[in-house]
């Protein structure tokens, strides 16, 4: 296996109406890394994630996941090693019950029934959702839907976990549980989010996108310490790193 788990080389992508979304994005991800992908609305975060999973393909440049370049021919290999959790769990939970949904991926991998069952139980237990297995997804709360959506990806045993806005719409307690869950995963992780406090808790490295380009790439502490960079990219320090609103310290 290659040393780099994910590699993007000068990736360009324009939407069908001609709007440029990615304009030469390059970075590499190593085994076990946890990377926060941050940037303003429309900076290209979600588009970039769709390139990693081979839902979109670059108009020029290359994306590699593990040993495979992401092309229409290699998709089955790429999608075995990379799991994408979508922003809206309602897009991801399409089967009649939570257990059916979590089993969807393993069944498509052609695994035997007992292995599918083991994976479903394991993934649901991992996210603390074992009690939800026979519930229909439309009856779940926002936090439960998120947990089920993560379980549906974990059941495929991916090496890389990619998440789009995982904390969007969660109440503080559900968000805190999610952070604990993400910290417990040994997977290589890419988390696209506006929740900079979550990034501070979960990610050691940050890639900042700005208008389809990488504006900065470095350790979390140094990126969040650069006020002018954050301002230029429509970001701000995580609340915990900001001064106390009362005493200013």
């Amino acid at each position, binding site marked *: 296996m290659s040393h780099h788990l994910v590699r993007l080389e000068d990736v360009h992508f324009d939407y069908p109406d001609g709007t440029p979304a990615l304009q030469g994005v390059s970075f590499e991800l190593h085994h076990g890394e946890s990377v926060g992908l941050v940037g303003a609305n429309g900076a290209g975060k979600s588009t970039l994630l*769709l390139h990693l*999973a081979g*839902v979109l393909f670059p108009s020029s440049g290359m994306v590699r996941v593990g040993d495979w370049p992401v092309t229409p021919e290699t*998709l*089955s290999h790429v*999608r*075995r090693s990379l*799991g*994408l959790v*979508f922003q*809206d769990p*309602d*897009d*991801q939970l*399409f*089967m*009649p*019950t939570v*257990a*059916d949904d979590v*089993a*969807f*991926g393993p*069944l*498509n*991998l052609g695994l035997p*029934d007992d292995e*599918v069952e083991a994976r479903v139980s394991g993934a649901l237990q991992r996210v603390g959702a074992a009690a939800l297995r*026979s519930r*229909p*997804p*439309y*009856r779940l709360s926002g936090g439960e839907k998120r947990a089920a959506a993560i379980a*549906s*990806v974990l059941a*495929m045993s991916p090496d890389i976990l990619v998440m789009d806005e995982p904390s969007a719409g969660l109440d503080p307690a559900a968000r805190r549980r999610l952070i604990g869950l993400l910290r417990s995963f040994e997977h290589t992780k890419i988390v696209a989010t506006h929740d900079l406090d979550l990034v501070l808790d979960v990610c050691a490295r940050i890639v900042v996108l700005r208008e389809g380009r990488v504006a900065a790439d470095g350790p979390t502490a140094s990126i969040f310490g650069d006020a002018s960079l954050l301002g230029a990219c429509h970001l701000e320090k995580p609340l915990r790193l900001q001064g106390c609103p009362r005493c200013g310290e």
Partner: protein
Amino acid sequence: MRADGITAALSHLGRLDELAGANTPIGRVDPRAKLVTTLAFLVTVASYGRHELSALLPLAAYPIFLLALGDVPLRPILWRLALVSPFAVLVGTFEPLLDRQPLGALGPVVLTAGWLSFASILLRFALSVSAALLLVATTGLDAVAAALAWFRVPKVLVVQLLFLYRYLFVLSEEVARALRAHALRSPSHPRPRMRVAGSMLGQILLRTLDRAQRIHAAMLCRGFDGHVRLGRSLHAGSSDAAFMAGWCAFFGVCRLVDIPRVLGVALFGAGR
């Protein structure tokens, strides 16, 4: 419909399917046995002549059996039956007007063939719709879909059925939200006018298409290859076969023998 009405209707919609989780004697019967038996029931009910009424009555035993042994509450079934009853009433309403041939008299009231046919239509409607509702309430739509797939019903249709049911809730919520947003900014005309309704429907359609694309992408990301594999193992035993055979035999007897008439003759003599 107003946004609040849609929200209320939504909360009722999933209720039937939720009943299916209960562990009851009927809930434990194999979904395929229940599906075949219910189909046989529907065919039997549909096969009666338009003036048959009393001969249909014994068939009510099947929905009553499902209701009682499936531990299904009567109210949600009756509510849904009432909801769709206007269709049957509309179909049957011309019968008394068109077919005025007198059949007999109950005191001063002359019973015409049209009224008999109207009653027969309503009874057949009540029997078939309640049996279909009880099938879902005691089995669950997902298990019905698994049974359909087992009987080699084209996968496309089965998946359509599942997705229609799954996204009915999401899409209805989207419509409810759009209507609510409209009502809040249009206090004097809470219902959208034709021109606004057109563009609103267009927006909802575009959003639906977007969602469909996202769902498809989510499916592809988890290895979707055109086949949805329902991970349900169906186990049929001798009790399931007995359930199916017993009821089908009963339907056959009902169809061949007019049980109420036979009983009437046996109890009260041949009459006139």
